[in-house]
């Protein structure tokens, strides 16, 4: 299978966009490109099942390997397993929904769609890379467009937010690079050459003391992307200043780059250090979960509410990774996918509300269910997914994290698990406060002429909801997909015990 098509397809779309004229052409091409991505993702899913059911148990499928820069032994080495495939599917869903909600983006539409799709190049490249250098390269590709998307099309204090986001993510990248370089220079194989190859490094044994030096760099670096406390402060400002589609990409895809990196690079390649630093990770994750949830309660702007709740929800990802049990790692991956879909849906709903009412302040909204039933229902479904209602993806992910965390018999870790469980009550409080004020309650006269969702908004929300419901109702589909991938990681970790 030609895995590079995942990168090439959006690149071609980007190039075609450059030759388009006017919003109408641009958006058609963008949508076509997004659909192609979706089709590709599903083709890979089908092929993946075929390979696996025909007994192919190799760690990575559809691998291809080309030397990129021989002097430093940098390769363009790609391949996917269930975890990457889950992330690719997530990306495809969020991209198509993001394009659809930006359907009427008048301002500099060509540049806007170009950047959106360029961002997806970075995301796909990141998820399929098996060479640490290429992986880093695509991580950077995914950062720059965000700066421009927020700085140009954003709202509020957008320059500040864009700068803050870019600086903090760049800082994260710098840390990641130190971690990766540290790994590279400690991978002396037989003939003395170093390697960036992820699978080769996984076969080696990096000395524990070296791991302990470089693990924090890699983990914190990736952690900044996924709102690791206390480096999460770019999240609220960045999300709330970004235009709708950029918020969706940022929370739905970009924050997942971090979680994926923490798992695939930091934990997988440095298992000794992952054990050693587990208490710190769990502590920070628990703080993020509880503190993020309480901080959300005090927010008055819908986007800030969702942004802070993302801090809390991404804490579950880190908690699952920190607990280092099979189930908890599965839970972390499930939570990444679930949170990506849910938060994209949430931002889409907020964007739809904002574009009609021109406010995101909870206090100024009310009773929207009466005039915009579709949008309000979407908002409520996103909220219910966020508070972990069974039947939607959030429940499955959170429960898997909780079950997995409880399997770690350490008493303090169990206390952390209980605190994490307790956050679902706080989540219910802030979600219902927001929903109760926004879509329920008396309708303000200013809004009695609002129109409900347009066809493109309906499709965007519908796609995300379908994905959320499928995971919520039939979680085994996703679970079976990611399980071989997490087995690979866990086998390496559990050997140490």
């Amino acid at each position: 299978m030609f895995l590079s098509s995942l990168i090439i397809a959006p690149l071609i779309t980007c190039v075609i966009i450059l030759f388009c004229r006017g919003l109408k052409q641009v958006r058609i091409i963008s949508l076509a490109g997004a659909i192609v991505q979706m089709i590709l993702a599903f083709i890979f899913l089908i092929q993946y099942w075929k390979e696996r059911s025909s007994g192919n148990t190799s760690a990575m499928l559809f691998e291809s390997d080309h030397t990129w820069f021989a002097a430093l032994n940098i390769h363009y080495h790609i391949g996917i397993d269930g975890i990457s495939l889950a992330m690719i599917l997530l990306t495809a869903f969020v991209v198509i929904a993001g394009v659809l909600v930006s359907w009427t983006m008048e301002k500099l539409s060509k540049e806007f769609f170009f950047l959106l799709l360029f961002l997806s190049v970075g995301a796909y490249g990141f998820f399929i890379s098996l060479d640490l250098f290429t992986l880093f390269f695509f991580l950077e590709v995914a950062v720059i467009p965000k700066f421009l998307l927020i700085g140009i099309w954003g709202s509020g204090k957008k320059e500040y937010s864009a700068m803050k986001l870019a600086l903090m993510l760049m800082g994260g990248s710098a840390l990641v690079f130190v971690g990766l370089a540290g790994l590279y220079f400690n991978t002396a194989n037989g003939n003395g050459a170093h390697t960036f190859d992820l699978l080769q490094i996984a076969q080696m044994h990096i000395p524990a003391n070296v791991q302990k030096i470089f693990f924090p760099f890699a983990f914190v670096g990736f952690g900044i992307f996924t709102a690791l406390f206390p480096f999460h402060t770019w999240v609220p400002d960045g999300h709330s200043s970004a235009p709708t589609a950029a918020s969706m990409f940022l929370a739905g895809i970009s924050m997942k780059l971090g979680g994926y990196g923490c798992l695939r690079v930091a934990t997988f390649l440095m298992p000794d250090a992952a054990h050693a630093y587990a208490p710190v990770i769990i502590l920070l994750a628990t703080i993020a979960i509880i503190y993020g949830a309480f901080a959300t309660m005090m927010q008055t702007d819908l986007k800030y509410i969702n942004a802070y709740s993302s801090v809390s929800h991404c804490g579950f990802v880190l908690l699952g990774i920190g607990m280092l049990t099979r189930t908890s790692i599965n839970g972390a991956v499930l939570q990444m996918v679930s949170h990506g879909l849910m938060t994209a849906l949430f931002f889409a709903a907020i964007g739809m509300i904002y574009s009609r009412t021109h406010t995101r302040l909870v206090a100024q909204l009310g009773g929207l269910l009466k005039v915009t039933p579709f949008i309000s229902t979407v908002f409520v479904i996103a909220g219910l997914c966020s508070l972990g209602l069974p039947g939607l993806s959030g429940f499955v992910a959170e429960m898997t994290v909780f079950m997995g965390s409880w399997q770690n018999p350490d008493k303090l870790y169990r206390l952390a698990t209980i605190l994490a469980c307790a956050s679902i009550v706080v989540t219910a409080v802030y979600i219902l406060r927001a929903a109760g004020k926004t879509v329920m309650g008396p309708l303000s006269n200013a809004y009695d002429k609002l129109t409900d969702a347009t066809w493109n908004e309906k499709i965007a929300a519908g796609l995300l909801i379908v994905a959320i419901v499928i995971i919520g109702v039939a979680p085994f589909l996703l679970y079976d997909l990611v399980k071989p991938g997490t087995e690979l990681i866990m086998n390496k970790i559990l050997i140490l015990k």
Partner: protein
Amino acid sequence: MNYSIIALIPLLPLATFILLGLFGRKYFQTSGGIIATVALLASAIISLYVTYHYFFIDGKVNGTYRHITALNYTWLEFSPGISIDMGILIDPISMMMIVVVTFISLMVHIFSLGYMKGEDRFSTYFAFLSLFTFSMLGLVLSTNIFQLYIFWELVGLSSFLLIGYYFYKPSAVAASKKAFIVTRFADLGFLIGILMLGFHAQTLDISTLIQNLTNHQSPQFIGITTASFLGVSLLTWGLSLVFIGGAGKSAMFPLHIWLPDAMEGPTPVSALIHAATMVVAGVYLIARLFPVYALSAPQVLEIIMSVGAVSALIAAIIACTQTDIKRVLAYSTMSQIGYMMLALGVSKYGGEDGLGYIGSMFHLFTHAFFKSLLFLGAGAVIHFIHSNEMKDMGGLRKLMPLTHITFLIACLAIAGIPPFAGFFSKEEILLAAFRANKFIYGIALFTAGLTSFYMFRLYFSIFWNKPSTENKTGHHGEGTWSMKIPLVVLAVCSLLAGLVPFANYITSDGAVLNATNNIMFSIVPVAVSLGGILLSAYLYKKENDKPVRAAALFGTFYKAAHKKFYIDEMYLFVTQRILFNLIARPAAWVDKNIVDGFMNLTATTTGKVSESIKAMQSGRLQSYAIYFFGGVIAMAALFIYWWK
């Protein structure tokens, strides 16, 4: 027979929910009600058929009802042995529950056809009712404790949606939020309980879990009893936490505060969810795990007994002072569920000792009929009067003769007057309490007296009190046929449900028991109940100032009871003052000023430092020359200094 046909019972309402939820507003705005009702009628018929088959044809083996797992699918496998399964468990209590749920739900559907007619979101209402019915059926049929939790949350959701049905009313929004959040808080206990029990029992399957934890030699039992936290074994912790979940759903003190507010929902919803079915889920949960409680952790049963008794008493006292008829009924529900909990608490496992268990399930069964009848009757009154307040009512017996008679039957049933249904079930509970604990028996007996007092206070205030206005205008108060039929059917059930020889079908260990009614024992409770009725007749039958004087007699105590013992205010204090002001507000402040402040400080410091040294990069050759020579001289000086 092949019991997998049972799957249809919950799936039919699910199909209705999906159909009406997606297309209701567009295509089924008026026909939605009929569609949902017909689907539920089919469910009810199937469940009656299956239940008949189970109890009378092939459920019994050697005098004991067996547990059958009709279906079981692995839904999510965490690790080998520990998985969430979706399945159908057949045993006496689940069979009884599906009959109760489908039957009451059917009655409520039929009643709603008339009651909700002309509502803006008519089909949405039926979609939510169907969702509730589906979830409740899934809950009672669960084979797996996590499956039970999933449906437990889903009934909470449908309760939330239906309480908030009138979403434009701020009070309804507040009530729906309160109901969801309070029960969610309790569910946290349930969840952690599941984590503990599931981890140590090494299974989430209910039957296996009960087996592992009641066998005192099994490694799982030894593991969970030797592990302890704060000196209490994890088994006790786990079961107590599960009970917290049950107490939240069943509105037990002090987690009951959401139930009276939940009356903001449409009245038929209160009849179904907040009287007959969902609120007894907590009782059902304890009954489901009863062998574990009774055989392995009897100390938790004592907690359950006390909580049940306190709830029954407090709710009955508050009910005597409320003036909103639905709130009186809500407190009455809480009080009766307290009775059921108390009965479970005094019960032991097996044979004659399990009388409390039988009484609890029996009362759950009969209560469903007469309490839903009371709510539907109240709904008919509210439909006519357009008010919930007692002071707006009175003298309605001539205007609403059918409602009057059926309401009276329900009142007699709940008061425990023979031969109405409540008498039989209440007698069993009282007898079980009498045998186990005289003090608890005293509380239960006193509560029984209060119950008949406040129920007849309600009855007289609605139907007597003021002079009855004759039906002069031809305008009469009864609703449509669809509102009358359920009243009549439920009245018949409230009359006859007590005659079911319950101990023949449902016992704590499944073995058939031939219990005998003890006539002599019944004399005292019936006399107490009659006393309550007479007292309320004396006070409320005619309009007068006796009630005011009676209230004055109790002074502050009356006022405290009227204000529901200020429990809501205490909660408000804890949530507003402590959670919001002491935790959430500081967290948000710290995040903005300290954590983010530090990040910004790093950035501005970097900026300032570079600002202050950027002048050095001036581009002027002279300056660079000075720096250069200055540097050379300094280095030379250092070099000479060291070299010496």
